């Protein structure tokens, strides 16, 4: 699990501790849902480019 508070500080985000919690807590919850999904990705899966572009073969 990423340390979002440390990442925020390293990114130069200067906010008070309460605000830091308001930023870090939702990211921790999202991380818990997102990270396991990434583990299932195989290298052949390329990024989505939008339905219209996919359809047009662009």
């Amino acid at each position: 699990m990423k340390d979002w508070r440390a990442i925020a500080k390293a990114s130069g985000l200067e906010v008070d501790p309460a605000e830091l919690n308001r930023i870090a807590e939702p990211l921790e919850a999202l991380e818990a849902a997102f990270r396991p999904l990434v583990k299932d990705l195989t290298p052949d899966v390329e990024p989505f480019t939008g339905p219209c572009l996919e359809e047009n073969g662009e």
Partner: protein
Amino acid sequence: MTIREAADALRARRVSAVELAAAANARIGRLNSKLNAFITVTAEQAREEARQADAELAAGRDRGPLHGIPVAVKDLFATRGVRTTCGSKVYEDFVPAIDAAVVERLRAAGAVMLGKLNMHEMAYGITSANPHFGPVSNPWNLEHSPGGSSGGSGAAVAAQMVYAAMGSDTGGSIRIPAAFCGTVGLKPTYGRVSRYGALPLAYSLDHMGPLARSVRDAAMVLNAIAGHDRRDPTSSRHPVVDYIPDDGCSIRRLRIGFPGNFYFDHLDPGVESSVRGVFARAQSLGAVVKSVRVPDVAALNAVGRVILLAEAAAVAEPFLERREKFGPDVLSLLDQGRLVPATDYINAQRLRRKLSREFDQLWSEVDCLIAPTTPNTAPRIGDAAVRLGGRDEDVRLATTRLVRGINVLGLPALSIPCGLASNGLPIGIQIIGPAWDEALILRIGAALEDGGVGIPACPPA
């Protein structure tokens, strides 16, 4: 009165466009102090446009069903010479030199523009409790939120200030206010309606669409605004059709998907019973209701949130040094987005492709999916949490839970009102269809509406 009824009255000379605009202006004048739906009212401009509409009709120039009809647009659509704030301090003095594509097309269709509608700051939230321009109230109960981010659009249509309003939907922002305010709301397929001139929240998730009093009214607006626009790099050349459902349209033998997983978890009981009633009504109208297992919508939501955080932070980055210009909820989301690594954003887009392919397979089993638009009715203004299924849930995450995934997939979805809860607030269903099949979901919506699914008009605020 619907757009069709007003259009018929205009052509029969029972009413003029000037009278329609005057009535709309009077209603806005009477109600806007309570609802705060409009940020800017363009009354004089509307009078002039209405005079021109009448003159054209008298001269035999008929631009179609929107000719002379009062409409308004969310305040993120650029309007030439009229301030466009995006509900934000950042844009409080922004007066565009152009009209957004949607505004151009509405004007070309003869619609009369009544003004610019309040919204959640930067379209980044679902309450429309705007810290800079004041909160929008729900016409059904002024203490409740209209939803958002197109909250002014929902309130203005429900309160009959205008016949239709334009909104944008990045994670439910058309469908949520439609459900909470008891209006119809259409999110077309991504690429169907040009985003040119609409201030972006998240490029790959933003969809433009109408809120209206009826399904056919929403279809009339879509007819006017759909189509390729070379100025929007994601605009599609997919053929445009006539989206207006026929009178007496049928859903006989259509396969309507009932999601057996996810969409009925943790619902308000009133919402659940009302939505289940729609399936019974659809069956009685000859549709075949088929239980299906939908792909992982929780995963879609997580993917959508990563993409939204990153794209919205990228859009707002030039303004983020002026932190005092943002409300606390939006600033917090933008700060979160600045921390999302590029690898997570790219992997979210890869997961999007994978999940999109899985979802596509659903359309071999059913013609559409029907689900609740939101698990709850409109929360009180200021509520941070909502209790559903015995657990407290963040109001933003709860309210977007059933709609966000469809933005990730780019599919068309139509929200229509289907009942009133015991607290007197509207409940909505969403009809989700395959890409580019707006005509199908509008036909299903119209058949349900004709078949009695709906609610009475909102009582005067």
